[in-house]
């Protein structure tokens, strides 16, 4: 899952490196770090936002505990961005049946985003194939996206191939 945490660090050298250490130690993959020295808090602390991917809740809890133990003040833990990833293939007259509309309808669901689309075009008049990667906030939203894709596919006579 992808996690976003916001914390406040003391404004002394080495604090940022110290804060990032437990995150990578537990195998999480850091995606982005924003260190906002210009937005110091009244107590002189520096807000930092870190976005990282971590395998499971248990590891996340261990990371958070270690961060708190080291003196970081965590102000926000969010798991909003693309926590659940689903790969789906579509086969049929994908372009002909308005692929833009297919994507827009899935994207219109709350907490769901199509992050990648790869098309393999068939010859003229032939069927094409597409691979879609869906990112959703949680399992429930991902399931809703897959159900909607099933509906769209039935309407547009496309074959949907999902993960087992």
């Amino acid at each position, binding site marked *: 899952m992808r996690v976003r945490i916001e914390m406040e660090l003391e404004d002394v050298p080495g604090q940022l490196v110290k804060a990032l250490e437990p995150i990578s130690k537990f195998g999480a993959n850091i995606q982005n770090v924003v260190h906002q020295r210009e937005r110091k808090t009244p107590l002189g602390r520096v807000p930092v936002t870190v976005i990282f991917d971590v395998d499971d809740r248990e590891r996340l809890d261990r990371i958070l505990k270690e961060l708190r133990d080291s003196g970081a003040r965590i102000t926000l833990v969010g798991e909003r961005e693309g926590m659940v990833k689903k790969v789906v293939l579509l086969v049929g007259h994908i372009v002909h049946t308005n692929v833009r509309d297919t994507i827009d309808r899935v994207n219109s669901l709350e907490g769901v985003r199509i992050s990648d689309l790869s098309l393999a075009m068939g010859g003229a008049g032939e*069927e094409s194939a597409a691979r879609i990667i869906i990112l959703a906030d949680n399992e429930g939203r991902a399931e809703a996206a897959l159900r909607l894709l099933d509906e769209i596919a039935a309407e547009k006579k496309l074959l949907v191939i*999902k993960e087992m």
Partner: protein
Amino acid sequence: MRLVLIGFGNLGRGLARALLDKGRALHSSYGLRTKVVAVVDEYGAAVDDGGVNLRRLLQIVEGGGQVPDYPGGKREKPAVEVIEEVEADVVFELTPTNIETGEPGLTHIQRAMRAGRHVITSNKGPLVVAFSELERLAEESEVEFRYSASVGGAIPVIDLAKNLLAGNEIRAIRGVLNGTTNYILTRMSKEGVPFDVVLREAQELGIAEKDPTLDVDGIDAACKVVILANAILGMDAKLADVKVTGIRNVTPEVTKLARETGYTVKLVGVAKPDLLEVAPKLVPLGHPLAVGGTLNAVTLEMDLAREISITGFGAGPRETASALIGDMISIHRSVGAR
């Protein structure tokens, strides 16, 4: 143990060969002496109370003859008469599958049970059409009924689930249950060859039937889902309960798109209490179900053992004889224990 073989095609002959190979071992290892007292095909029967000479019968049939060409053979003697008249312990029902009526296998099995014979079959037809009726009839008639060979060929998935994993609540069964479609998908994915071309080659190699509909449209796999659901999950499912999608629309491009993200496309059968389905699915490369060629594979999901997967040859006379012989030994053991 006196045996009757109904059907002497690929499997009937494969079983005959295995019995010839294993005769001694069956006796020394299990104290089981077998004697085939009758064999029947569509044209008639070979009956011999002293034991049909299987070597001789194989020679006749492989030389282009028919079962009733056996010395003293009875032309046009129907299977039902043999089943009822010839004193026997076990009837092997090995005739072609008919998924609409279950016949002729269904009648053969019913008559055999009523006549007090244990039954072993590889034939999906009767199991898909009348599973619970046959289980009930076997119980009423106090005979054993085994059908390991009907799903997964040599793979002992039903026994694995019912005996070795007894005590688990089995929550889902997923499997690659059709060797022909798996062969087609594997070649498409590895070599980028289009569906039609691979299908034609598979037909030339004898891997696919002349009429590939049952395999390619997922119906054969759906039959196996029905049997697994009934035998292992205790359901009373019929073929119409299975949501079936075949592989006709899968192209090499589809398998390529899958591969690029770490998946392979497999025709997967799923049996869960709330879902019976056969459809092409994305299986992660390296997953136990990502088997190649004509292999079959099944994964059981349970409460205690969590996941167990098993892989093997899903068809072939010698491979499937393993299941038929295994069923026979299992009956020998349970009857001996009574």
